[in-house]
């Protein structure tokens, strides 16, 4: 009897929290099918009364949305591929090789995690200005070639690869490049998926750095374009909701497809962290 009551109580807490968690997103998604009149009216309904896809077609027509979307996608994928590769490589070298100064180097990298983004951004801006790289993607990508967080996560993950396996390959005559690419990389798929999602998401969400670097409209990214959108068409909430839905949905789909590996990956790093 007592168990039943506990079970009901726990389930209720979890369900209420779930509803509160996804409510804002569901509401936004529903509202993206409403007209502006309905959104701004005093009589609010959760679901659209006269559902319309007008907002979506408007966003795609009025606003060079597909270009921003495509720019963001290319930028985010590029950053993800680069940082996941460099993080895994650095993690492998810092966990599997013994050399002088290794731990010092690693703790220095960890300490850079404490340096706030807004602190480094001022000198980095001047640096790019001096190099004449403003308004180019290389200025956008270069400061993210390595990320301290990625190196930290992948070093943890590499530590779980058994040394015997690496030694066996070496005895068979494999060089270190082969060992890394053909043995270590495939073994770390869970961690690679979870760090990829993090990196993709952060890149997709990048705001200040691209905002400062990119000036030309045709190179602009989606997160900055959304801001312009709300300024330029300030009363057009319906359009904003549709645009936001298009910005959020790819990430959610990506996450749902990979969620099992993703959660396995972050939990694995949590236990050791």
């Amino acid at each position, binding site marked *: 009897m007592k168990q039943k009551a506990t079970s009901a109580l726990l389930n209720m807490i979890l369900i209420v929290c779930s509803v509160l*968690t996804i409510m804002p997103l569901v509401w936004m998604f529903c509202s993206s099918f409403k007209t502006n009149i309905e959104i701004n009216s005093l009589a609010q309904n959760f679901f659209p009364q006269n559902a319309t896809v007008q907002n979506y077609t408007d966003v795609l027509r009025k606003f060079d949305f597909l270009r921003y979307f495509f720019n963001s996608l290319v930028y985010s994928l590029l950053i993800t591929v680069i940082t996941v590769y460099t993080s895994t490589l650095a993690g492998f070298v810092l966990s599997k090789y013994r050399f002088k100064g290794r731990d010092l180097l690693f703790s220095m990298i960890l300490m850079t995690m404490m340096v706030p983004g807004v602190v480094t951004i001022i000198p980095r801006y001047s640096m790019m200005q001096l190099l004449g790289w403003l308004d180019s993607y290389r200025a956008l990508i270069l400061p993210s070639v390595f990320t301290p967080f990625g190196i930290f996560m992948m070093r943890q993950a590499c530590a779980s690869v058994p040394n015997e396996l690496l030694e066996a390959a070496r005895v068979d005559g494999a060089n270190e490049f082969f060992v890394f690419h053909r043995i270590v990389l495939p073994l770390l798929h869970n961690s690679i998926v979870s760090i990829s999602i993090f990196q993709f998401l952060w890149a997709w969400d990048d705001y200040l750095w691209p905002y400062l670097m990119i000036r030309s409209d045709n190179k602009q990214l989606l997160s900055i374009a959304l801001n312009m959108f709300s300024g330029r068409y300030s009363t057009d909430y319906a359009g904003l909701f549709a645009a936001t839905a298009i910005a959020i949905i790819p990430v959610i789909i990506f996450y749902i497809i990979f*969620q099992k590996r993703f959660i396995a990956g972050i939990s694995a790093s949590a236990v050791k*962290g």
Partner: protein
Amino acid sequence: MKPAAISAPLRSRSEVALRSIVVCFLIVFFAVFYLLPVIAVFIGSFFQWNPLKNQMIYLGLDNWVKLLHSELFWRAVGNTFLFAAVATFFRIVLGLALSNALFSKLIKHKSVYRVLYYIPTITPLVAVTFVWKFIFAPRIGLLNQMLGTNINWLFDGKYAMAAILILTIWKDFGYAVIMLLGGLYSRPEECYESAEVDGASAWQRFRYLTLPLLKPTILFVVITSLISYFQTYIPVLVLTQGGPGTQTYLASYLIYEEAFSKYNFGYASALSFVLFLMIAVLTGVSFKISGKGDSL
């Protein structure tokens, strides 16, 4: 041959090559993009520095004196501590409560909850903040509709900070749930069984077994949360621009404003350096407390 050389592991040429390449890249990269900027920020704080006019005039301690006497700066520091403390507290409390509830054997469909709770964390912050701007709208916003109130969340000094906190807590609690759940799955079940046999209540088991076992994970979440909340500015930028008055100025937003809307790079550099020191001290203190406080 020296003994040290004998005991060292045999290194192939490819290992030396790979290692050297990676270490060189790491050193150059972190020197250029982290070390150099911190030094530049420190030096820059002694100048009147405007990148648009290509202006750099030596000021001595002027920026620092201005900073220490600035009411806005102290206000922002106070707000930042309040914001970081409250947001971290709720993240940990919700994380602990929900991860323990989810871990219970009485719960089915665990993976569904896990996926749902994590969704806000993976949605892009900038995009989602625009949605919340409308959720906080007076009268017709979703939050007021649900509560049956008519609060002007973003423009009423009593509620503006609460609004930023609500958004932040909603966005971030899922991360703590997943991390702590990971910690729970690695706990030794024998301890719990014997505690139950000995008649320990659920609360006692939580207090004396679960909390100490989760301590490393809690500490990890607390430290990463504090570091990231000390750097929060996007919600302020999108929702309130620091207002009403100076109610929601956070340190990072103040730096953003000084640097990139007023182009006072010198003064912003002094602010940045202070923020950097605050985070460094805070992280150090967290480690110290956690080292001593075994009773947690």
